[in-house]
């Protein structure tokens, strides 16, 4: 079974802190994704990565950056957390073929105070 894990289920941070959200997958997937989920808005793509060292902006990249130093790990970074970044963050991974299923992690509910 494919497993996508995220470092925390719940996280509380203060405004201005630097926040790292970690995602690890164990199936050698090339593509990895970070989404943000808000009530009434569905999921929106923040950043994605085709492969190691590669990254592409999604629909809402402002205020975020990412890092993919190893194939299995994709990190989302909030350089200076703000209250409007309070949200659920979901990581996903997939084999290269776009018809393939994206496998999601359990999500991190981040609260910025």
């Amino acid at each position, binding site marked *: 079974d494919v497993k996508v894990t995220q470092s925390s289920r719940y996280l509380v941070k203060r405004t201005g802190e630097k926040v790292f959200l970690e995602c690890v997958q164990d199936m050698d997937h090339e593509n990895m994704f970070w989404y943000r989920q808000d009530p009434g808005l*569905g999921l929106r793509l923040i950043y*994605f990565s085709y492969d190691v060292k590669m990254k592409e902006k999604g629909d809402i990249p402002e205020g975020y950056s990412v890092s993919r130093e190893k194939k299995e790990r994709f990190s989302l970074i909030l350089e200076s957390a703000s209250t409007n970044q309070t949200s659920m963050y*979901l990581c996903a991974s997939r084999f290269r073929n776009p018809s393939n299923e994206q496998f999601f992690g359990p999500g991190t509910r981040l609260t910025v105070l």
Partner: protein
Amino acid sequence: AQTVTQSQPEMSVQEAETVTLSCTYDTSENNYYLFWYKQPPSRQMILVIRQEAYKQQNATENRFSVNFQKAAKSFSLKISDSQLGDTAMYFCAYLSGGGADGLTFGKGTHLIIQP
């Protein structure tokens, strides 16, 4: 940019009934993929069913089937013999056939199965 619209924020049906969730999308592409994902209260997103746009035959997975109308850009999900465990948020999603881009999701439909 592609958009995905789910016009039913919430639906409620009795157990064992059949329910249809609607989804429409807007695209100028000819090659793409459509998905339905389920997110139960546990928050784990699970793929329910997928459809390749070039396939005319509607996809089916056990009690789940889709009605894919390419010309109308419609992709509805039918759940037959609904069960309590079907209670969840359901998201319709679009993926361009061109590459490894992420999914474009609708806003979701909260489906409640009543005992």
